[in-house]
Structures are given as structure tokens and as C-alpha cells.
């Protein structure tokens, strides 16, 4: 049994098939990359895993439990955290309160939640901004806040949706560092990313999809040299 797996996962919106018969396994402690051109269905896969969209057919299994049909908030309680591609800070709350809200996931005690939130903010190096209103953050800090908020829910599996997009090379390097740190703390990661250097550097294994279907999978070097992958990104000659 894998730590996390999907079996023949399929999603159609009306007639359009966004995810088509997708099966993959993620082992505990891995950083698993999910890549593909724009509109290939990566974010939809995340939305299916977290129960945000209902699954058309197929299964999602997390530590042997079937996630199909379980509401999003319960899936979060079971240990799946996620960030959003378009960052969604709780705008009128401070950075700290954003994270405290998440930290209430496994406790009802304000002090426990705040202590956990401060730990996470220190881990993500956002502690200096703790009293800033979330709507005033720079894009780099907003991405960090997304990660901090997901971490504070205490996940075992973290879904990162394009956390590097729009960052400067310097910020990207820091981001890579942070993701490695998260993995070293024992959290399994599935990451959707567009920036190839990032993906190749940090992923243990990669799955490439196009039109919602698997076109290649394996170790980074294998996928990078796969003809189907190159074709999907650059087009046919």
C-alpha cells in the first residue's frame, strides 16, 4: 500500500474531460512533482484530492483511506494541506491570525493554537511580519503565508500549487530551501510547478500530464528527456 495514490482518477465538466484515467503513487517522505502545460489539469487534480470538486470516477487513497466524497474540511483534518495557485490570504486578518485560524485545526485552545502558529511562522521565516494585515504583503510573502497556513493545519501530505510562480530568482532559491525543510520535517509533498529548474532540482519523481492524461513519469532526468514531454511543452516539429 502506498502512502498516497490515485486509481483511474477521472473528472469531466459536462462534455470536457479535464482529468482522464490518472493513476499514480506517492511514497511517504517523497517530493512528487506534477507538471504539464497550461490547462493540462494539474490544479484540477488537487481540487479532486481535497474534495473541492466531486470525482467523476476513480479513487483517491490516502494512507489506505478512500477520500472520495469526503468534504474538503474533513480531508484537511485527516492530514492533507494545500496552497492555492492564486494566493488567497484572509485579507483583513493579520499574518498571525491567518495562521492561528489554521492552527485551530486540531485544538480548541487559543494558547496552543497561537504557539503552534508562531512556530510555523518562525519555520517559514515570516515571523517579522506577524502583525501585518495579510492584504498588504508582497507576493513573495503571500506565497510564504499560503505555505505557513497549510503547514499550521498539521498536514502529513502537503499539496503545493505553483508556489514559485511570480517570484524573483532569489526568492525562488529561498522557496526551494523551504520546501526541502518541510520535507525534512517528515511531510510528504506533491508539487505542481511550471518552473522547470525548480522541479528538476527538488523532486524525487515526476509525473507529466497533458489534456488530463499521463504522458510520462519517472525520475526527473528521465522525464526531462522524454520526447512526449518535450513535444507537449514545445509543440511538434
Amino acid at each position, binding site marked *: 500500500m502506498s502512502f498516497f495514490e490515485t486509481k483511474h482518477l477521472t473528472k469531466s465538466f459536462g462534455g470536457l474531460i479535464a482529468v482522464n484515467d490518472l493513476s499514480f503513487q506517492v511514497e511517504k517522505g517523497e517530493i512528487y512533482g506534477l507538471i504539464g502545460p497550461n490547462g493540462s489539469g494539474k490544479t484540477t487534480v488537487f481540487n479532486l484530492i481535497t474534495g*473541492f470538486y466531486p470525482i467523476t470516477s476513480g479513487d483517491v487513497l490516502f494512507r489506505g483511506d478512500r477520500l472520495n466524497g469526503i468534504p474538503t*474540511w474533513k480531508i484537511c483534518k485527516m492530514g492533507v*494541506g494545500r496552497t492555492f495557485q492564486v494566493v488567497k490570504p484572509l485579507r483583513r486578518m493579520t499574518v498571525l491570525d491567518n495562521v492561528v485560524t489554521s492552527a485551530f485545526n486540531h485544538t*480548541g485552545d487559543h494558547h496552543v493554537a497561537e504557539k503552534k502558529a508562531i512556530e510555523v511562522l518562525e519555520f517559514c521565516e515570516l515571523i517579522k511580519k506577524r502583525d501585518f494585515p495579510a492584504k498588504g504583503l508582497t507576493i513573495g510573502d503571500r506565497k510564504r503565508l499560503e505555505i505557513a*497556513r497549510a503547514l499550521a493545519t498539521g498536514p502529513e501530505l502537503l499539496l503545493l500549487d505553483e508556489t514559485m510562480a511570480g517570484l524573483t530568482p532569489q526568492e525562488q532559491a529561498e522557496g526551494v530551501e523551504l520546501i526541502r525543510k518541510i520535507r525534512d520535517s517528515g511531510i510528504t509533498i506533491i508539487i505542481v510547478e511550471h518552473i522547470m529548474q525548480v522541479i528538476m532540482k527538488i523532486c524525487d519523481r515526476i509525473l507529466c500530464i497533458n489534456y488530463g492524461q499521463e504522458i510520462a513519469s519517472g525520475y526527473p532526468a528521465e522525464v526531462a528527456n522524454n520526447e512526449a514531454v518535450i513535444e507537449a511543452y514545445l509543440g511538434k516539429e
Partner: protein
Amino acid sequence: MKSSLWPFLIVLALIALFPVAVTSEYYRHIFIISLMWVVIGSSWNLLAGYTGQVSFGHAIFFGTGAYTAGLCMTKLGISAWWGMLLGGPISLLVGLVIGWICFRLRGPYFALATIAIGEIFRLVTTDWRSLTEGMEGILIIQTFRSKLPYYYLAFGLAILCTFGIYRVMKSKWGYYFVAIREDQDVAEHIGISAFRYKSLSLMISSFFTGTAGAFYMNYMAFIDPHVVFSLHDISIMAILVAIIGGVGTMWGPAVGAFIMVWLQETFRSAFFGLMPRWVSEAHVLVFGLLVIFVIRYLANGIIGDWPKIKRLWSKDRELSYSSSGN
């Protein structure tokens, strides 16, 4: 911390001592009604201002509480004061059912559904004469001739309600409510059942509004469906109280309640008889203009935009300070 508590305690003491100092029944009445609106406005604010679910139907809960008290008297033959205990829980149950129906709708759709349910309550209670006496209404005999007991009851209820909401907002529930207001999708993704917490917010809100309704029955001694289930005079008034004081602020609805009730009375009585009579006909017009003004220029209400107001007010002094360097 301690120093910020002082002005608050002074205001409380002033309100507590007011009816001792002022013996005019009329002014005591205005204060009683204001305190009742503190309760309704704060309750609406918990659901709309903090949880983001704009209700146009708080008259449902007010009316349910009022009729619970009235029916205790007419149907059960017990004192209408039992309504003060029963009105809240029964409104809460009504709120639970309404939440179950309406919380699958978001934003303006939720608002529309609450208008529709409010109208259904008003029309059905008007038509169901065997239960409610229809438009003839329910008339009881006031227990106290003095206004003092009512005054302190309303005061106690207002304190209980605002303090209760204050405590809720400092707890996990409060964080969850605001998270749902800010972004319901995010809330779901960080482990919050939006449906459950919206229902909780509505339950607290409907409980206090219903208790206020039961108080109204006991104090005014007369209700009919068009008074207590009124879209304009209750549901929209609750919204006005909160937005004028400040949506999503702790003390905004309390401030808004006093402003609105005073304004209403000032105009209704044509500035206490000092102005020609036609002025009294303009009181709703003034409300409307006030709404337009507040939404346009003070979107966060008097409390929420207080820094902005202060800045405008002390602009001249600020200018002279800035010239001396900061």
C-alpha cells in the same frame, strides 16, 4: 490594557445611572428601545459583519421571539415573561432550520432567500388567525407601570449579548467565522466546515434577536405581524444600525443603535416640537440619505472609519504639526 478599559466602564456606568438621573419617562423609553437595538444590531453583526452572511430577514427571529412570548400568554395561559426564556431557544431552532435550507446559497443569493423567508413568516402569521389573531395582534397587560425594571432588563440583555459575542469572537469560533467571511473556499481547505460554523453563528444571532423580540412583547404589550415581522422596520433597521455604527466591529452596532433610535425619535417628534410638523414626516427620508452617505463615504461605519473621521476633524492641527517636523 487597563487604561483602554476605563472609557468603556465610564460609558457603562453612565448608561446604568441614566434613569436615576433622568426621570422623564420619554427619555427612558428612548434608551430602552436603543438598548434593545444594541442587542439586535450586534446579533445581525455577528452573522453578517463577522461571518459574512448578509441577512435581510432578522425580523424572522425578532418576530418569532415576540410571538413566543405573546403565545405563552394567549395559548398557554402562562406569563409572557416565560418568553424571555423560551423566545431565544425557539428562534434558535428556527435559525437552525433556515440555515439548513439557506446556507447552501452564497452572497446575494443568501440575502434573497432571507427576504423571501421573512415575507413568508409575515404573510403566514397574518393569515393564521387561529394561532396569532392575525392583524388584530396580541395585547397583554404590562407587568410594571414604571419603566425602571424594563430599563435594567434591556441593559442586562445588551450587556449579556455584547459580552457574549465579544467572548465568542476571541475564541476559535470567532476566528473561524471571520475566515469564512474572508474566503469560504480557503476556510474549507484549512479544516473549517463552513456549513457548521455558519449555522453556529446564525444560532447565536437568532437566539439573542429572539430574546430581544420577547422583551419587546413584554415591554410594548402589543404586537402584530406587520410590526414584528416588518422587512423595513426590523430587518432593514437591523442592517442600518450595524452599518452606520460599523460592520464587523465590536462596538459599532451599539453606537449605531443609539444614533438610529435617537435620530428616528428626533425626526418623528419634529425635533421635540421645535420644528414644524412636516419635519416628522421626513424621518425615513433622513434614514435613506444617511444610508447613502454612510455607504458612500464611511463604508466601515462610524467606529470602523473612526481614524478617518478623526483625521478629517483634526486636519488643520495636523498640518501645523507636520510643518514643525515629525
